[in-house]
């Protein structure tokens, strides 16, 4: 089955909505719709063509119904998988499966959030917890404390330093400075990160992703139909998913994420390995994410992520371009970021990334993360030449 999925579907349209801070009068679903219209437009399609809908909105249990009604989409296949920020990479996988099975032909993956504007008007994205908590009484600040506990353990076991983590933030900022759409574009140094206020040790405010508004959309269709559409198709070559825990106290090993499994599945389906990847887009909710994911995705050995990211290796001009849009740390982070890994990977493979373009990029890896290092979803995308 997996052999049949390689190259069966392609991304044919991507777009962000307005990002940053959109103000109190616009809702998450407005941003989702704005992105959907633009992504369908560049694909040469309309909402009338969409027969598969994939979406998740934080706190909206029936998001696909909200979005379909708003857009006037009449899907024959709907997937509201909600595994946190990785949901949209999961949707990409599921869309390819549905297309390959004939369950739909034009899939729209869409997201919107007003996480930044919500904070100023008392709108809460998430409802009250529905399950008993064995963590809340100890007042972790989630999600940062979950990632901080993993970072502290990684530092303890492998000698990773706060300066190594700071290198991740600096690399993301240097990419963001090349991206006109990025939210944070002021110069940033390792010293700035180390001097920032510590929120949940070892992580400071500058080890944390932004809180912005924003939406995104991705249009996926069959390889056959993709070749008739305006933009060069970006094929899904491999995908894999895995999760082992929800709460950080249930994570089997604080220094190893299920990205080891999700990426193994994606590489196997795609028939490629980490050394073949030209550009990496991964979910950097916190600086430790980039370090641990580069290990778990196979770009370096476990424990070597800190050394790997130092010296500008993942920054502009480095050996491995990572998060070329500036990532969740400096480009945008509207509650859930996963869809933006697909959007940037697609632009890199089309050669549309402007000053941040990796010349000749043929293979990209997009990796989503959800929960607290919980859900891991890896997608490998390629140009026509990689089929």
């Amino acid at each position: 089955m997996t052999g049949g999925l390689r190259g069966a579907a392609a991304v044919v349209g991507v777009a962000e909505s307005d990002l940053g801070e959109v103000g109190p009068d616009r809702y998450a679903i407005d941003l989702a719709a704005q992105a959907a219209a633009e992504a369908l437009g560049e694909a040469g399609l309309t909402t009338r063509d969409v027969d598969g809908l994939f979406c998740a909105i934080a706190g909206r249990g029936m998001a696909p119904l909200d979005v379909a009604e708003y857009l006037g989409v009449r899907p024959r296949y709907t997937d509201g998988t909600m595994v946190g920020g990785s949901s949209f990479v999961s949707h990409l996988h599921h869309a390819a499966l549905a297309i390959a099975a004939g369950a739909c032909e034009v899939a729209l993956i869409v997201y919107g959030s007003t996480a930044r504007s919500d904070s100023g008007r008392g709108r809460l994205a998430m409802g009250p917890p529905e399950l008993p908590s064995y963590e809340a009484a100890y007042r972790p600040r989630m999600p940062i404390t979950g990632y901080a506990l993993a970072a502290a353990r990684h530092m303890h076991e492998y000698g990773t330093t706060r300066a190594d983590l700071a290198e991740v933030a600096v690399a993301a900022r240097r990419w963001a400075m090349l991206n006109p759409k990025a939210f944070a574009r002021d110069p940033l140094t390792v010293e700035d990160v180390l001097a920032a206020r510590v929120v949940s040790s070892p992580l400071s405010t500058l080890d944390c992703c932004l809180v912005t508004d924003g939406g995104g959309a991705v249009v996926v269709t069959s390889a056959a139909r993709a070749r008739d559409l305006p933009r060069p198709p970006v094929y899904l070559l491999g995908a894999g998913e895995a999760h082992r825990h929800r709460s950080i106290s249930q994570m089997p090993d604080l220094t190893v994420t299920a990205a080891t499994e999700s990426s193994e599945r994606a590489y196997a389906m795609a028939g490629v390995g980490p050394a073949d990847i030209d550009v990496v887009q991964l979910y950097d909710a916190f600086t430790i994410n980039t370090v641990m994911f580069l290990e778990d995705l196979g770009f370096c050995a476990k424990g070597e992520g800190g050394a790997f990211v130092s010296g500008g290796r993942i920054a502009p001009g480095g050996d491995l371009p990572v998060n070329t849009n500036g990532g969740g740390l400096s480009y945008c982070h509207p509650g859930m970021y996963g869809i933006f890994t697909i959007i940037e990977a697609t632009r890199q493979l089309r050669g549309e990334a402007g000053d941040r373009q990796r010349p000749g990029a043929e293979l990209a890896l997009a990796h989503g993360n959800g929960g607290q290092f919980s859900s891991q979803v890896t997608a490998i995308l390629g140009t026509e030449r990689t089929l």
Partner: protein
Amino acid sequence: MTELAPHRGYLDRLAEGTVPFQRCTACGAAVFYPRALCPACGSTGLDWSHSAGLGTVHSVSVLFPRDAPPYPVVLVDLDEGFRVMSTVVDVPAEQVRIGDRVRAHVEPDGPRVVFTVLTGDGEGSRA
């Protein structure tokens, strides 16, 4: 025996001053948090047990609220083989270290289980 209301079972035992966890009668796994089936093997045969309260700090993060004193959040591996989130109450937050041996105490009002640091000389003297 099958536990149909595991959170209630946990709270009731915590109120008695114990540190409750479950032990799978089929595979022997220590299970926390309390459940209706064993996450290691799927058996519904879970017996309540309680910990002797001794464990080791597996990780620690110190939180620095803008308007309150710093406090540690820890993950503790209890000697019986399960991990909990908790806090350490007897030493300054920034002195809690990974690898510290700790002892559990039940705070009935929380209700919650907190820890104090064990040292070679006794408890809580490292501050």
